[in-house]
């Protein structure tokens, strides 16, 4: 059985139906890349899985358990983590408070140890613990967001366009960390990426969404080499 199974998912915002019968699976140690044109429902897919958009029908099975109707704060507790595209850190809290906030569901006695472990991975944060998060650069904020995700040792990590608006170097740093999460920690990752080529190069499997429906499901390599779909939807015409 797959680690995450999404079955016939129909979701949206209130009365605005965005996703139509979306099915896919993700396994541990695997990166699923979700690509598609603007407004195709990529971000909504992540939000629906996490419970912050409206799910009309369908099922979300996580580690064998149906989590479709669970509220987001419970999903955070059982091993899911989600990094939104924007507003993904608390800008008015300092870095330390952000990390403590991320460890909200941990037993109090574990927070300090976990924070030290995370700071060993994201060393640049050590010197910025008392700085307000709003003083960090865009790339540093993304990395703080990733550090916050790791505080709870989640099994499934979902990234919503983590490289958007970053310099090429900062984008590379973020992508390298995502690869490290898969290769070194064996985590399951869903990566929504606006830079389709970059995303498909690091992904194992891929999902192409067009107008809220799946247009392609297969390996990332297959989609990268599919000239028709690449040209039509992903700007990969070469």
């Amino acid at each position: 059985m797959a680690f995450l199974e999404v079955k016939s998912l129909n979701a949206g915002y209130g009365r605005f139906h965005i996703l139509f019968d979306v099915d896919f699976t993700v396994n541990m140690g695997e990166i699923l890349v979700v690509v598609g044109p603007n407004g195709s429902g990529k971000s909504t897919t992540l939000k629906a899985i996490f419970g912050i958009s409206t799910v009309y029908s369908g099922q979300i099975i996580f580690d064998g358990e149906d989590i479709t109707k669970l509220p987001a704060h419970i999903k955070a507790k059982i091993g899911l983590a989600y990094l939104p595209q924007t507003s993904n850190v608390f800008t008015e809290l300092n870095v330390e408070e952000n990390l403590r906030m991320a460890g909200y569901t941990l037993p109090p006695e574990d927070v300090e140890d976990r924070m030290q472990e995370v700071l060993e991975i994201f060393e640049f944060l050590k010197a910025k613990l008392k700085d307000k998060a709003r003083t960090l650069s865009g790339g540093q904020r993304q990395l703080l967001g990733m550090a916050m995700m790791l505080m709870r040792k989640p099994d499934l990590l979902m990234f919503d366009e983590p490289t958007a608006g970053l310099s090429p170097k900062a984008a590379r740093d973020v992508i390298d960390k995502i690869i490290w999460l898969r290769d070194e920690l064996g985590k399951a990752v869903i990566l929504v990426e606006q830079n389709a080529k970059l995303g498909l190069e690091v992904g194992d499997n891929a999902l192409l969404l067009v107008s809220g429906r799946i247009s392609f499901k297969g390996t990332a390599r297959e989609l990268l080499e599919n000239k028709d779909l690449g040209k039509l939807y992903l700007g990969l015409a070469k």
Partner: protein
Amino acid sequence: MGFLPNGTFVMASIAYASALGLLSMGLSLTFVTTRIANFAHATIGMIGAFVLTLLVDRVYYTGPSYQIFITAPVLSFLLAGAFAVFMYIVIMKPLADRGNGVTELMIATFAVDIILINILSYLLNAIRGVHIPKLIGLNVSSWDARIHCCGVILQASYIVLPIAAILLTLAFHFFLTKTKFGVAMRATIENPDLAEVMGVNTNMVYTVSWFISGGLAGVAGSLLAFSLKDTSPNDSALIIVSVFAGSIVGGLSHVYWGLIGGFIVGLMEKLGTGLLDNFYNQLLAPALGWTSFSMINYEKLMSLGLVVVILLFAPEGLAGVDWGKYLRKIKRRW
């Protein structure tokens, strides 16, 4: 300088301003967390006045007692906080969950306000006259202990109210900065979706914010009732104007600035009006031969006038002003 008000009047003004500060801080808190402009907030405060009146009638009827300054605020905090939670869970949240917008929710708070005023009036009538002949229209200031301080005799509530405001603000600041749940509340205020994603039960945060807001209003109401001429739930209709004025002057989306805004509005209403009244009637009118008239009844003109001025020059209230810039300018000059 005969037009300057006496010490008793200054202390009464500071006490009133402190109560408004607490009320405005509570109003801002529920606004920043749940985006609900609660027009029943001052009437929730009147629950405190009701508790005080009840204690005076049933427990402390023999005369002034310092104990009442502990029992009344504590009971009022709990009771008013509990009512605010009830109002949020039973009325406001279901309405918000059904997709009602800011305006509909605001109108709903008006409805709650009217219902609560009637309930409190009924209860005051029901308990009337065990030890004191008539509770409605009762001036409970006679039950306020008197303190001799600096050559004047003050009502004890004039001292207790500012102290309570300072202590409650410090406690609230400690809660927000040093406790896990308090930091979660700050995080939820800034970005509720992200807080939920981090595992915070934001609905619990909203509920607690309503409890604290109601509690602060209850404390303010219980101590302010000592200086109200006639304790009646209807007083809230006038007080809420000043409470909103305070929150808006501070900047509706900033909790601490709500406290400061409320305090400023309170001082303007009492001390400002008093100064203006004395200045006109004791200096200006006699010197120019103009007719004297009392300005005391125009105190709301001061607070609402201040709101207009603030909104013209600082649309986001005092919180939106770049104070750092002015401080730097002052530093350079010196």
